[in-house]
């Protein structure tokens, strides 16, 4: 059985969520193998836009019945700006799904889903899956300010959302690791995606409190399928490919100094 496929995606809609983020919804032209939360796709953009290699994006939402896939993308450079310019009817090409995804079985019980910035992207599909499994969970999002918090209503329809902003414009003021929800505790495990300093701080909290924790890394990639060895993370097992053995890692496997 195929684990991944190459398919064209027809853009159905694109919505500007903030100055720097878009939500793009696309439909796959070919059957897509099973998608797990935390997996990603490799998107090929029109070559005239200047991005030569594919760009990796988390699968934000996926409907296996209709083959609809959506991405939450932050504009940081050539490729992501090309994503933001996509319009309904445009066709792009994707390799999907890729990577391991979150391991839900190994982290049962009440979970905290922590994300910062565009790290919110994989948390939606993860939340949908946990809800379908009737599991208890809460989101904890961190951002510079209100504008950087994306799709809060959609997230709230799945589970309670706790918020920390650096400017205090919404939720508690400070970093996610300062949020009172962590002090209250009561969680059995953590799933996390966001900027590396944030993930390291969350990993530190998790290890101090003996909570199992998985983080999703965003290394620069070329192939996205374990062929080029460009995307490695140094782990207790040596250099491993983030695209194939990740992007999700149990923090115990990482060599982070926390």
């Amino acid at each position, binding site marked *: 059985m195929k684990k991944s496929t190459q398919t064209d995606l027809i853009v159905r809609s694109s919505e500007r969520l903030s100055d720097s983020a878009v939500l793009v919804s696309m439909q796959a032209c070919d059957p897509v193998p099973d998608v797990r939360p935390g997996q990603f796709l490799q998107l090929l953009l029109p070559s005239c836009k200047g991005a030569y290699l594919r760009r990796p994006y988390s699968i934000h939402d996926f409907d296996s019945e209709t083959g609809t896939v959506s991405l939450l993308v932050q504009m940081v450079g050539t490729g992501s700006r090309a994503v933001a310019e996509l319009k309904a009817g445009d066709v792009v090409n994707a390799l999907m799904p890729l990577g391991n995804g979150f391991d839900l079985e190994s982290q049962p019980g009440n979970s905290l889903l922590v994300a910062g910035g565009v790290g919110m992207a994989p948390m939606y599909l993860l939340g949908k899956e946990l809800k379908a499994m009737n599991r208890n969970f809460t989101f904890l999002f961190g951002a510079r300010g209100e504008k950087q918090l994306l799709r809060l209503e959609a997230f709230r329809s799945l589970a309670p959302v706790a918020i920390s902003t650096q400017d205090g414009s919404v939720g508690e003021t400070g970093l996610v690791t300062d949020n009172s929800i962590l002090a209250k505790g009561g969680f059995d495990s953590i799933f996390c995606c966001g900027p590396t300093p944030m993930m390291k701080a969350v990993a530190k909290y998790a290890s101090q409190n003996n909570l199992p924790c998985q983080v999703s890394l965003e290394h*620069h990639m070329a192939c996205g399928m374990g062929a*080029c060895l460009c995307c490695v993370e140094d782990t207790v097992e040596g*250099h491993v490919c983030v695209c194939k053995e990740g992007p999700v890692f149990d923090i115990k496997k990482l060599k982070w100094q926390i």
Partner: protein
Amino acid sequence: MADLKTKIGSLELKNPVLTASGTFGYGLEYQDYMDISKLGGIIVKGTTLAPRQGNPYPRMAEVHMGMLNAVGLQNKGVDYFVNNIYPKIKDIDTNMIVNVSGSSIPDYVETAARIDGLDRIPAIELNISCPNVKQGGMAFGVNPASAAQVVDAVRKAYSKTLIVKLSPNVTDIAEIARAVEGAGADSVSLINTMLGMAINAETRRPVLSTVTGGMSGPAVKPVALRMVWQTAKAVKIPVIGLGGIQCATDAIEFLLAGASAVEIGTANFVDPAISEKVAVGIGEWLDRHGCKSVAEIVGALEC
């Protein structure tokens, strides 16, 4: 339908398309996207005597129409290859070729000798672009004498088809190719990556952990074509051309310049099924031009 069969020394390829080392894993990684047995051959990841962790991350940077890499030959060593990978790839119905690297002549010889014993590996591609640790880290492939020395030593230890992969980071590629031919190579392949670098102006820092890295992709194609053309005129052994091939037309250009076969590298990352498409496209081009075989166009450049 034109006959796509090609020969590299005594090695028969069902078509002239191979995949380039370091860009196609062990072939297995691509099975979800194409039928890898449709290729003329697959050149697997660079293999060294001892396991290597490679360079620290970050190891890649995109450049205009191409990329830089500084993977640094990460692999689990030749014994791991023989015991764990070979059993998984030996029944793939195409030529599985191992790219052999080393940092000393005894390393190269020992690695080649161990692969010589594997029935289903009909050829090796000797990567002489690696630094020669004993001689101050200069690559074996940048001077004719050291290139000939390593090829001569490996030739004595390896009985099957010996392809030698040349570095483009030299002044006179034809001279190196002749030296390697004289030392007993059955074929030369070129080009390996071109030394380059990338800088992040915002941070004032190099993008790669190693500062410099190897450039590949469409941006290097004109240089690769020129070197293949010069080399094909200089040697009698078959030349395998690569560097920036993205489509069948690119591949035809290399054949016209004198290559008997081609390798596809970085383009596999853009379209994982591209190598199979290039093979089909070469056949279509030959039919359209009324050619009966690949051999008819090898070196058929009219200038």
